[in-house]
């Protein structure tokens, strides 16, 4: 057991180091930005004196290292700076939208994870049958589609004149849960279609990969039923790759929503970052990117740890 704990501690440390390096890259973004930060904040009309005063107040004259440390400590305290576009604190801009993005991701994940596991296992069980081929071809097709294509097809089908669902997922007026699920249905469905395909294919492949193993043949020769062979003999050994692909897709659900949010005008972080990139509003882009990277690292870390725990070779040493 201590061995596993040490491995997990190592992974955690590696995750922290990664986040640290990522923060440096993101911080350097501001440094590399052409033009003067204070000048940009105040606009072209500002006098040289006010610009200089602002530079002093923002600490822009300090050495880079000092500014990095200041920036990082501010962020750790929850202060992401001020938007260049509208002067609002970045933390305020992010707050509500973060919740929206997470809820949408949760909504989609709640459908897609169980669905893809079930489909993947069934496809592996009935491999090379018509069912398998149909599911596989559909999955390959929906992976290949750009998200906005899927999104617009869904709008075309379900949100036209007299459609069942709204094409604009506005959250105005603080909708209740039922109303939220209805309004966010189409964006969630888009995300579900894309991620389910990925996870289903990987689940199927991970299981089928193992079906050629001698221990699976052994189970067959012990007279074990096909369903039990998949669930008890193949699945436990396929957990690591499956956990990884689920984590990857959950990460994608949080970070890859950008396009979907834009199509459905959903007030999440994706919308925010696209607007900020267009406006070159660096503090906002930095804040959102850091959040996304954090979520990403955290998810991958969790997957890593879970995959370790699912491996008896690592859990029970000789």
């Amino acid at each position: 057991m201590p061995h596993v704990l040490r491995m997990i501690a190592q992974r955690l440390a590696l995750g922290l180091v990664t986040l640290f390096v990522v923060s440096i890259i993101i911080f350097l973004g501001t440094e590399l930005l052409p033009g003067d930060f204070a000048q940009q904040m105040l606009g072209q009309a500002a006098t040289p004196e006010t610009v200089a005063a602002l530079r002093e107040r923002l600490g822009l004259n300090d050495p880079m290292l000092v500014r990095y440390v200041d920036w990082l400590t501010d962020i750790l305290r929850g202060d992401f700076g001020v938007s260049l576009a509208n002067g609002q604190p970045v933390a305020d801009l992010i707050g509500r939208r973060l919740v929206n993005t997470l809820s949408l991701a949760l909504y989609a994940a709640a459908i897609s994870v169980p669905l893809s596991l079930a489909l993947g296992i069934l496809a592996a069980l009935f491999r090379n049958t018509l069912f398998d081929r149909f599911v596989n071809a559909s999955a390959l097709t929906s992976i290949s589609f750009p998200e906005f294509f899927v999104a617009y097809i869904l709008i075309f089908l379900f949100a036209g004149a007299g459609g069942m669902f709204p094409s604009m997922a506005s959250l105005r007026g603080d909708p209740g849960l039922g109303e939220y699920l209805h309004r966010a249905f189409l964006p969630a469905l888009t995300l579900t279609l894309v991620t389910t395909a990925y996870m289903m294919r990987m689940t199927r492949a991970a299981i089928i990969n193992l079906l050629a193993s001698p221990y699976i043949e052994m189970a067959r020769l012990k007279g074990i039923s096909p369903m039990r062979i998949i669930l008890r003999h193949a699945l436990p050994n396929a957990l690591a790759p499956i956990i990884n692909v689920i984590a990857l897709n959950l990460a994608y659900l949080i970070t890859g929503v950008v396009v979907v949010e834009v199509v459905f005008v959903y007030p999440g972080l994706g919308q925010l970052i696209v607007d900020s990139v267009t406006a070159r509003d660096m503090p906002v882009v930095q804040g959102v990117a850091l959040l996304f990277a954090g979520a990403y690292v955290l998810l991958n870390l969790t997957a890593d740890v879970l995959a370790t725990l699912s491996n008896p070779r690592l859990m029970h040493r000789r």
Partner: protein
Amino acid sequence: MGFLTGVVILAVVVAVALAAGWLFRAMMVAILPAGAGRTLRTAPPAAGFGMLVILLYILVALFAPLIAPFGEREIVGPEFLPWGDTHLLGTDNLGRDMLSRLVYAARNTIGIAFVTTALAFLIGSVLGILAALTGGWLDQLLARAVDVLMAIPALIFALLLLTIVGTSIVNMILVIALIDSTRVFRLARAVSMNIVVMDYMEAARLRGEGTWHLIVREILPNAMAPLVAEFGLRFCFVFLTISALSFLGLGIQPPTADWGAMVRDTATLISFGDVTPLLPAGAIALLTVSVNFVVDWQLHRASGLKE
């Protein structure tokens, strides 16, 4: 009723596509020399269809000026004309001919995606193979650096870098190539790692072969199959990323015709039940589906041969 007709139409489309794929394969088998023909014969109709579509796209991209009825940036009429005789697919939000722009966009979007993928491959596979071959500190350094870069989600990283360097076609190519080369690096390194431990590599090293010989004669021929398949997958990924960026208004900039941007420009029509915005989106989807079908067949073949 509507649903039923939808299913029937879908089934007919799929059947026609598979039949076309089958015919195309039969034709190619007849034309090509025996060796290539034998390989092709194992292709399922879906892969045949994929190859046919890819060929058509390449032809359209190459001969765009001959095919397109109007110029790429030419304003030929009022905005949002419906489909008609002169403008088969109507006009866009600025009154440019939709069909012509679709044709020109094939050239722009595919060309840019191809260049980007090729660049990502050049960087990623060279470094990946080299890392696996030399091992030691170089390998560790590159692998760790790639780990960190991959810890930032691709699209967000692209957005961040594009904010820094500004949105232009060259910048976009460089940024996406850089981000994608990390993925290629991982694969090339993993594949090469499996080759490097083979006895024939040991034999070649003990013979006193230099790095260049080891890479070109011993590793590359054996790493080719997975790398080619990966090229297909990467191309799809790059292509989708570029389209997404363009759709968001951060990629290929107007007035250059591009499918992603065209979807964005005509998006409002969708609420009026007009399918026009689905055409450029469908053009993207059709190409990526086709490439994926071909790659899927190749991967299946490679794994089948191993058994």
